[in-house]
């Protein structure tokens, strides 16, 4: 079977590239003029980029830098350097790539990366974030603030959770006022949440395009392209414009029934060092990801949440607490996937276990059991998001081929589309 490139490249891809280069250029300028341009490093998950707008600060996302290194096949050297320094083979490779690249002076776009004004660890579910930012602060000498976001232990965050996060957000404001000598611009913060709400609505519209059959949008591979602007620019007018253009372009994108053979939900981050090869493994089968959990790391906007300019602090807190996949509990992820399978009308589920990220991966075997028992064709594959040593191209392709062949057989014989059974507890317990 020949590889078919179904990858869509429209003008939004060019716009995305330009926006991200502008961002790196801003970081490069900040590196040369720290006093004029505050920079706050943060994690992608449930980030509070809106708050930074109140200081005109530029966000710096180590995860985005790390994944850029992996896509450009530059991650292995920094990882090896970090391992020489004592990091374990089983430590998150994002962290190792980021720290190794910092020490080697490698940057994704070739420009400089500034020392952050504040290392703001938005602890949103991922415990590795804590360690990563403790180490970053130690290495760079930048001040550290851990914004402790309580894990979502119930359906909705409690009042104590919201009050706790709001108080910490206000502490961050005070800390940044002291570090930058700038007064927090509340109006600009409020405006940022309004821009975010608009960007989020448009992003949600794009995600919902994948409910069409055939879908004009791949909610895994295409979504990843759009996620950079989502994290960096959503709280700015440029972000709103970008997502407006993207929605319009994708709405008008011509697609024919022959372009889509299988509709999938994908769970877990991609293998960035082999991103293109991995994508081609889907493309050759005309398989489209109509929904993905990874694209909700930053926020779960397709389910209706929007930042609220009337309650900016509280809405930022709610976003961090409950409206991103990483701070929600594991069973809520099962519900999320189940909802995608039904409402986005998918044929099956691909679970990609990445060894670096236990937040995503610990328990994915149970997830497979859960969905398989519900009658959902489910494939479980293992590799890594950053470390090229853990990707076996032939094996991954073989497993995906076998999965798609079986889906094809089910379609031909009409065995496909078993109705989704109600979730059941595991019957395995031996008492």
């Amino acid at each position, binding site marked *: 079977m020949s590889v078919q490139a179904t990858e869509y490249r429209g003008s939004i891809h060019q716009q995305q590239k330009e926006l991200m280069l502008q961002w790196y250029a801003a970081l490069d300028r900040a590196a040369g003029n720290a006093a004029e341009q505050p920079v706050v490093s943060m994690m992608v998950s449930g980030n509070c980029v809106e708050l930074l707008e109140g200081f005109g600060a530029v966000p710096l996302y180590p995860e985005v830098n790390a994944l850029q290194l992996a896509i450009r096949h530059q991650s292995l050297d920094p990882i090896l350097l970090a391992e020489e*320094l*004592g*990091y*374990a083979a*089983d*430590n*998150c490779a994002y*962290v190792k790539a980021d720290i190794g690249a910092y020490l080697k002076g490698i940057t994704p776009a070739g420009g400089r990366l500034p020392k952050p004004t504040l290392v703001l*660890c938005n*602890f949103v*579910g*991922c*415990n*590795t974030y*804590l*360690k990563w930012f*403790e*180490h970053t*602060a*130690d290495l760079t000498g930048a001040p*550290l603030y*851990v*914004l*402790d976001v*309580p*894990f979502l*232990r119930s359906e909705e965050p*409690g009042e*104590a*959770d919201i*009050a*706790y996060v709001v*108080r*910490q957000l206000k*502490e961050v404001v005070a800390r940044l006022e002291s570090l930058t000598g700038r007064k927090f611009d509340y109006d600009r913060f409020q405006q940022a949440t309004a821009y975010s709400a608009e960007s989020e609505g448009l992003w949600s519209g794009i995600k919902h395009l994948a409910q069409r059959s055939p879908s004009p949008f791949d909610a895994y591979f295409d979504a990843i392209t759009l996620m950079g602007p989502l994290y960096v620019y959503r709280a700015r007018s440029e972000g709103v414009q970008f997502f407006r253009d993207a929605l319009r372009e994708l709405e008008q994108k011509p697609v024919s029934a022959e372009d889509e053979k299988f509709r999938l939900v994908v769970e877990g981050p991609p293998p960035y060092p082999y991103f293109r090869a991995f994508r081609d493994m889907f493309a050759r089968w005309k398989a489209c990801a109509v929904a993905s959990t990874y694209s909700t790391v930053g926020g779960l906007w397709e389910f209706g949440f929007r930042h609220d300019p009337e309650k900016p602090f509280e809405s930022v807190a709610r976003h961090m607490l409950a409206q991103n996949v990483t701070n929600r*509990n*594991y*069973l809520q992820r*099962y519900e999320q996937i189940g909802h995608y399978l039904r409402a986005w009308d998918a044929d099956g589920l691909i679970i990609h*276990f990445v*060894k670096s*990220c*236990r*937040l995503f*991966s*610990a*328990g*994915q*075997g*149970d997830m497979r*059991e*859960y969905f398989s028992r519900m009658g959902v064709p489910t494939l*479980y594959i*293992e590799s890594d998001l950053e470390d090229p040593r853990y990707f076996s191209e032939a094996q991954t392709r073989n497993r995906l081929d076998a999965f798609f062949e079986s889906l094809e057989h089910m379609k031909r014989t009409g065995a496909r589309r078993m109705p989704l059974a109600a979730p059941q*507890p*595991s019957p*395995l*317990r*031996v*008492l």
Partner: protein
Amino acid sequence: MAECLEQSFEPLTELAQDIEFASVRRWKQGAPHRKAVAFFPVYAPMEIIHAAGMLPVGIAGAGDRLDLQHADSRFGSFICSIVKTTFELGITGKLEPFDALLFSTICDSARNLCFVMKRNFPGQHFEFLHLPHSTSESSIEFLAAEYRRLMGELQRIAGVEITAGALRNSIAMFNRQRELAGEIYTLRAEAPHLLRATESYALLRAGLRMPVEEHIAILEEMLPKIRARGGKKRDAIRVVIEGSFCEQPPLPLIRVLEAAGCDVVDDDFTLAQRWFSEPLPLEPDPVQTLAERYVRCATYSSVRHFPAAARCRGLEQRIRRSRADAVIFLIAKFCEPAYFDYVLFKKAVDQLGLPSLQLEFEEKLFTFDRLQTEIETFVESLIFD
């Protein structure tokens, strides 16, 4: 008397490793309506569980006593053993004596485990506690609210009200247990030949499987006997063990360490009983006290946030207090919090001019030849340096 004392460690060792939780079952049978709450490492506010009239029980995987039939397929590669054995304990019905199981924000794998277990074992109550990773003033207020939420759940399960008086009594009880645990570690630092690390391990670990009152009585009875024990000092390297705070190393491995010429003068095997080094005040508000002390005064630990310098200071204090010659990083395979801290700690230990050795274990390990060679080589290099 020495022989008698040595014999008294055996049942404690067995109790600490019992995966049938016979002591918990017996305790529950002792009176109607008794309830037990298991907590996953590293720390839990045992005082609150105790004040509800329930038995707090520290669980710590299954060592090499359980074959994995189901857990490997549920958790996949690169996940630590304790997560898998805990799931396996559940699926084989061994956690049945527990009316509730308590987890907290120690790492990503343990957090997911809580919810995977919740799905698979619907007959049991699972509680996830958010222990703050912040030293901000606001985290005290939050944690007090979190403890009150936990109290509400436990009151519902136990069918009793947790009064301030009961909580004060429980805090006093656990203060005493911590004080005695502190004495054991002081004794080991002063005279490691009087109490082997494996014995100390059994003595303290068993306390996580029995009512605190009984444990206090055992410690009060045994401590004077241990102090009066004969024996002479060994010509050994004084080592601090760091990194075994969650999954526990096999006891034979600790014996290998000692046999190779190490006196383990401090370790982090049972941090739950050493979380606070000073007694907690009983007044004015006991819930507030537990929260405030957690945020302000708890020990450093790899499973909660500390700035790098403060974290390293914590280890340095342990090294100085125990007058250690070396540090052994004894890390459970796939334990990411320990792996990360190793990088910072190693740098700090190097700066102190102390030698260190990193070893990796799994609880189910049963052959120790390779590790023994590494340890012996390390000890020899120090002795003949």
